[in-house]
């Protein structure tokens, strides 16, 4: 078995003198807290300091150390009262599409500049209940629309591996913060790949659970039928611990699935012997960069070495995922974003003639280019005379794609492939060609349309020494097994432990 080439630019894990706290996983930090080797307040200070030091990444949009430290003190008090374990007192940061009482929430849009929510998102609340300490709010593409974080009204986020490269999007701030070890864990949202693609581009793990498992209450809507909260983490174990805290039925979200809480760590020690890994030929087409394919094939061989069986599966209509996604997601977005009209909150244009003009100008000036493009696409595909040809047809093809996954899962336990066709691209490389940008989601969109859990785990380095991700997808509600499969890979390899130079 040949291991993938060692990257020249990447550091090879934590060396002597490296800060133990910085490179620890959330689970390891929890253990340090349990052993009283560090306090939650010390941890919070440590990460706030790192955040300050690596400000140039532009990962954070709103930081309020006094609130963070107050939460850390509260966590320390809970430990002093005898509570322990899990993630109590471990820091986390939230993507700026989760509304928070204590930090502003903008969805990286000018139209919500300075907006303070009177309530916390359920995901924020659940993680807070588990004792996680919030470091602040993370930059992202405006309203989570984008694959490079270049659509933020508050500037680009840099990729810690290579500051010439995008961190991926839309959860670029979440990915960069975790990759740079500014936060041991971050929430993110995935509508068509917005957790997995930045995870792959930034050399960390990005996982979305089954649609309907995380509550959408308090998550600023982009495309309601696809939006799924998830996590960017350093390990599968961290993800499982985070899911234990954040995945719960929420009566405030009608699409929330009423299932009991689960222990997502229960299958971490799964035996890969006999595991059937489906490999869809459609995910290894001509557009795939050879270095990326090499890394993914090597990862698959790693699984074979562990006793797994590779099974050829087919998702013949997966390639239609992109057009289907951009019709469905844009249609829903065009309606979801109608509420930002300058009437009740957020940005309002300064000069206007009358009520409708006020709404028109506020929206024209408040939204960025990509958001406007998608509102226009969405409005078009829902219009009288086009609805059947676009929205209805797309909804039908979406079901076809979902059915193809079900057929594939009759032959295999998980599906594996690349996350993206290539490694992180450079700033401005694709901004003039929206379709090229949309194709960054080619492999992530089908599972989003099917609503199944999926994850991206680091599996090597490709062109220009930039990270490559391995894509794992599982059937509905099969997160625990998927995380177990990912965990076995992380037991056998150390790609997830690589830290970008200088961090």
């Amino acid at each position, binding site marked *: 078995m040949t291991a993938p080439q060692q990257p020249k630019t990447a550091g090879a894990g934590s060396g002597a003198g490296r800060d133990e706290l910085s490179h620890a996983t959330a689970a390891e930090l929890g253990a340090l807290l349990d052993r009283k080797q560090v306090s939650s307040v010390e941890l919070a200070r440590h990460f706030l300091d790192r955040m300050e030091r690596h400000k140039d990444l532009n990962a954070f949009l709103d930081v309020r150390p006094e609130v963070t430290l107050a939460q850390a003190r509260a966590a320390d008090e809970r430990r002093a009262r005898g509570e322990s374990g899990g993630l109590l007192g471990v820091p986390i940061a939230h993507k700026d599409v*989760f509304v928070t009482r204590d930090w502003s929430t903008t969805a990286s849009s000018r139209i919500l500049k300075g907006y303070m929510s009177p309530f916390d998102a359920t995901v924020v609340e659940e993680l807070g209940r588990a004792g996680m300490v919030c470091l602040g709010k993370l930059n992202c593409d405006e309203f989570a629309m984008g694959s490079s974080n270049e659509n933020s009204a508050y500037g680009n986020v840099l990729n810690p591996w290579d500051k010439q490269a995008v961190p991926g999007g839309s959860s670029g701030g979440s990915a960069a913060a975790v990759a740079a070890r500014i936060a041991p864990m971050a929430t993110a949202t995935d509508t068509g790949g917005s957790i997995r693609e930045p995870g792959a581009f930034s050399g960390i793990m990005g996982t979305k659970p089954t649609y309907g498992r995380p509550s959408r209450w308090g998550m600023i809507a982009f495309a309601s039928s696809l939006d799924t909260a998830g996590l960017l983490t350093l390990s599968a174990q961290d993800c499982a611990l985070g899911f234990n805290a954040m995945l719960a039925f929420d009566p405030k979200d009608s699409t929330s699935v009423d299932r009991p809480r689960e222990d997502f760590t229960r299958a971490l020690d799964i035996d890969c012997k006999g595991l059937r890994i489906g490999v869809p030929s459609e995910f290894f087409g001509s557009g795939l960069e050879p270095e990326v394919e090499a890394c993914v094939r090597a990862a698959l061989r790693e699984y074979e070495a562990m006793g797994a069986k590779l099974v050829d599966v087919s998702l013949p209509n997966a390639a239609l995922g992109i057009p289907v996604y951009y019709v469905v997601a844009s249609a829903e977005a065009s309606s979801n974003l109608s509420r930002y009209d300058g009437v009740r909150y957020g940005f309002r244009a300064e000069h206007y003639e009358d009520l409708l003009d006020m709404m028109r100008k506020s929206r024209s000036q408040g939204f960025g280019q990509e958001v406007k493009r998608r509102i226009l696409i969405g409005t078009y595909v829902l219009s009288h005379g086009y609805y059947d040809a676009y929205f209805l047809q797309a909804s039908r093809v979406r079901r076809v794609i979902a059915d193809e996954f079900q057929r594939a899962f009759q032959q295999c336990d998980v599906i594996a492939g690349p996350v993206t066709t290539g490694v992180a691209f450079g700033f401005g490389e694709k901004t003039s060609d929206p379709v090229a940008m949309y194709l960054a989601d080619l492999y992530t969109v089908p599972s989003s349309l099917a609503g199944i859990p999926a994850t991206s785990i680091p599996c090597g380095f490709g062109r220009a020494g930039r990270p490559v991700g391995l894509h794992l997808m599982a059937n509905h509600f099969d997160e625990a097994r998927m995380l177990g499969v990912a965990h076995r890979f992380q037991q056998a390899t150390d790609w997830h432990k690589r830290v970008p130079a200088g961090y």
Partner: protein
Amino acid sequence: MSGTWETVIGLETHAQLQTASKIFSGAATAFGASPNTQASVVDLALPGSLPVLNAGAVECAIRLGLALGSKIAPRSIFARKNYFYPDLPKGYQISQYEIPVVQGGTLRFLVTPRDGEPYLKTVKLTRAHLEEDAGKSLHEDYQGMSGIDLNRAGTPLLEIVSEPEMRSSAEAVAYARALHTLVVWLGICDGNMQEGSFRCDANVSVRPAGATEFGTRVEIKNLNSFRFLQQAIEHEVRRQIELIEDGGRVVQETRLYDPDRDQTRSMRSKEDAADYRYFPDPDLLPLMIAPEQIERVRKELPELPDAMRERLVRDFGLSAHDAAVLTATRAMAQYFERLATSVVDKKAAANWIMGEVSAALNADSIEIEACPVPASELGVLITRVADGTINGKTAKEIFAALWKREATSVDALIDARGLRQISDAGAIEKVVDEVLAANPNAVAEFRSGKEKAFQSLVGQCMKATKGKANPQQVNEILRRKLTS
């Protein structure tokens, strides 16, 4: 109006549902609260808020559907109707579009035209669907600004759509009244039209009598009284007929009725009608209604006004008109039912309610629920007239006393005030003799053929007995004595 034209009317009615909270949020729905005090984060459409369907509103829809004999859809879909308006917080209204919860059904009601006999009419319903109301824009009270009150935003509505089967304003109004009666009867709507709890849009067209194709229809929006509904339709029908007879064409459009000027004016034409870009709301799952739920609601339904009206005609021998009046509201019908159990003469019971009781209610501007005379006591009163204890005139006095709460018991009052009717023939004969003796002129006039003098003598006899003499006996005895 020209006799060669036929009017075609269909109605869309918005009934505000009597749920404690809004259709997709937990905010209260009470009318008249200070602006924006009954608007939750969902009603304000704050970022991250999501709708959750109020099960109470669904129950209301099932009740109405069962009462109309409609199909209750086992699976219906909430859709978004997208348009921008300052008092529409989300930029879309959640409604039902392609698959509504209530499908089909009929409403049967009595039409009483101004000229002609009352008749029963059955109108087919197209559908009824659940939706949320918008807020209110207040432009008048603010200089150069507009106020937005979102208390009403998210209030649950049932939009009830009829087929275009009404053929006159009288039929349209009768339909609207019957539907109003029904929704209040079912307890799903308070029916308050001033507060907008029940309002109609009328689709009106005309066509040459005998034609099978419909004419071009005009929609008249937001008619919040039966009188405005009638006037608006009559005005619009005249306008359309005149337009066509003058060689013009009716344009499909939405018009508003101005009751002050008794005219309709154009609001928007079909051409500039908004494209609402309906699509299924991805925040809400399809509404599933199990057969068991429908059966449970069916068991809880009260007897419906139409069935009760039929029963009153069949079992009590009332006229269709009387039965319709008595079933105008459930409270009225219940009062009548209580009264009828204790009274042999059901027609007399009906007459009392439609006469004395209704007049007193109107005079005091109160509803029958607040009637100070219990049905049981009114029953005693009617029985005392029937068994000859008192006469009709005394009965009215007693009723007035009961109304003013001067007494609570009819029998006690009769005894206390000595109101018992004098039916003793000997006693009456004595009074008659005295009256005849005291009024020789009147006697002479009568005998010379002046019938009027007889009535004056009856009056004297009644006066002499303080109104307590049995008037029939007075008549008989007096006539016998004068003609013998």
